[in-house]
């Protein structure tokens, strides 16, 4: 996972609230056997519509989604975060997030930042005045800036730290790899091993 500091990129004014994980990625895409390549699945139910905002040329390569309240509610599917990441989003701004979605985001390097509702309105207005304009999200200072406008956002310290360090769950555990190695060195050598393969034939020879 990459370290997160500041992101400057095209922002999408996503004037929708209560976007649940079923809308972010419909269930039919859950059958896949990969963890990447879900960009085609993002908002699949809306993408057919040529008027859909992500189909506007100004928002062709977005990195920041500026959404209405209660983004990412619903089922626990991690695929919702994968789809946003695969599409190219690094940041989602919303006044409120679904709990599980917010937790999953922090683990997968997607910044889910809480911005006050009136600030979201101001960001929408600023972007819509100049479609395709870039925003700068600064995780250290916890600010979002566009032109002269700068607003703050909320994120818990632990998730902020993980994003700044670029640590997913595995990275976090491997920070103490020496501890794992020490533990392994102390394991009894007769503990079971799956390799080399033992079977009735090797038993007979022994």
């Amino acid at each position: 996972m990459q370290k997160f500091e500041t992101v400057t990129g095209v922002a999408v004014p996503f004037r929708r609230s209560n976007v649940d994980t079923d809308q972010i990625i419909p269930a039919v895409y859950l059958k896949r056997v990969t963890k990447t390549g879900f960009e085609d699945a993002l908002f699949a139910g809306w993408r057919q519509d040529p008027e859909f905002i992500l189909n506007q040329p100004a928002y062709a390569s977005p990195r920041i989604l500026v959404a209405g309240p209660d983004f990412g509610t619903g089922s626990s599917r991690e695929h919702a975060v994968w789809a946003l990441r695969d599409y190219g989003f690094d940041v989602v701004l919303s006044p409120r997030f679904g709990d599980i979605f917010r937790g999953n985001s922090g683990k997968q390097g997607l910044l889910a930042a809480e911005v006050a509702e009136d600030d979201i309105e101001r960001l929408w207005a600023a972007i819509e005045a100049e479609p395709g304009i870039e925003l700068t999200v600064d995780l250290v200072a916890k600010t979002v800036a566009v032109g002269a406008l700068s607003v703050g956002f909320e994120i818990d310290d632990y998730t902020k730290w993980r994003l700044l360090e670029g640590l997913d769950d595995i990275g976090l555990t491997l920070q103490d790899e020496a501890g794992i190695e020490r533990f392994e060195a102390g394991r009894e050598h007769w503990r079971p091993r799956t390799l080399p393969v033992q079977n009735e034939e090797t038993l007979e020879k022994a």
Partner: protein
Amino acid sequence: MTENDTARPRTLAEKVWDAHLVKKGSGGEPDLIYIDLHLVHEVTSPQAFDGLRAAGRPVRRPDLTIATEDHNTPTLAIDRPIADLTSRTQIETLRTNAREFGVRLHSLGDIEQGIVHVVGPQLGLTQPGITVVCGDSHTSTHGAFGAMAFGIGTSEVEHVLATQTLPLKPFKTMAITVDGELRPGVTAKDIILAVIARIGTGGGQGYVLEYRGSAIRALSMDGRMTICNMSIEAGARAGMVAPDQTTFDYLHGRPHAPKGADWDDAVEYWKTLATDDGATFDAEVLIDAAALEPFVTWGTNPGQGVSLSESVPDPSSVEDLNERAAAERALEYMDLAAGTPLKDIAVDAVFMGSCTNSRIEDLRAFASIVAGRKKADGVRVMVVPGSARVRLEAEAEGLDKVFTEFGAEWRFAGCSMCLGMNPDQLAPGERCASTSNRNFEGRQGKGGRTHLVSPLVAAATAIRGTLSSPWDLQAEPAPMAMGGAR
């Protein structure tokens, strides 16, 4: 091994946990626990391997990892390509991943192939005092050896593949003491169904259960596995039985069991694992084994069960309003009327299999009842061994002949109708007496109705065509002494 105060009397579960503590969590953080054995199958592993690939991480300990194909595999014509595309993709993906990451895999057709929870113990990989995980909730099966075994999700599978550890929150302990002697015809499955009916499907939440008492000690390993397997249906994190001579005898000489001097060292250690006198449990449940009868579920969760001699319960007698509503819904789905004697309920199918009851003793128990008899007309009977080895063992004993002469279908190993991911499914509205572990709506096929039972009850039901216990056969000539997965 641990900074813990080892002089304090501890339970079996606490001892195993303490012995695997890589790092104690502080301030509400979970503990980091080392994993001795990671079992992998085709359904929950693809994205875990894909995550490793994306991050450029290897499998840390391929020598502590083993994969089998089970959930999707057909139980007929196993030499032909799998028809269902999703199933085939999952199987092929597992094969590619195992090759790429150096993980041992037992594929369809391989002599060690089978349900993960049957394969681990049979190879001697499941041993007392180890930690076992698998992306499958019935991993609790392995607790029968005095191992601590958890089911995990796909991101945790990736975490274990990469680090061989898992951050886990501490647990509470519950003693389930089953004392006394089971009556003939009553088996391990009846014990666990009775336990779940007693404590409820959420009764074990947050707990590791330890099954104790004379009735548990008297059980074989196969019987203990049946019990631990269903711990998850009581909501528990895991279920365990302290290792004893029965455990050691089962393991001795298995391909991956310790050998020579290592065996002696291991046994000496294993003997220290039992719960200390004076250790306290957070909760205790007592069950009188002698009072148990053959058990059956009437509803759509494993806690909705009663003795087979009873009738379908009346939801209006249930005090808890949520449970009453659940019971009403269940009866509607099951198409049952309150007050109907369970023994009057006719079935369309009997499924003898799943990681709960597909080991050799289960098959022997089933065979002991059906030998020399004919199945009831119109009832479809399927016998699915848990592993290719179990299948061979059964055939060497001639059990396959017993089954086919009875009129049952004798299949290849896999999960099969336990969850109907392969073609083995119930048709809508069909009713099945099943030795599996989940009677959820649609579990065995859309609209299918499941009654969970023991192998002996499954056999008696297949003979009479209505839910029956071996006791109901007493009047009829019994061609063989009544055995049991005791």
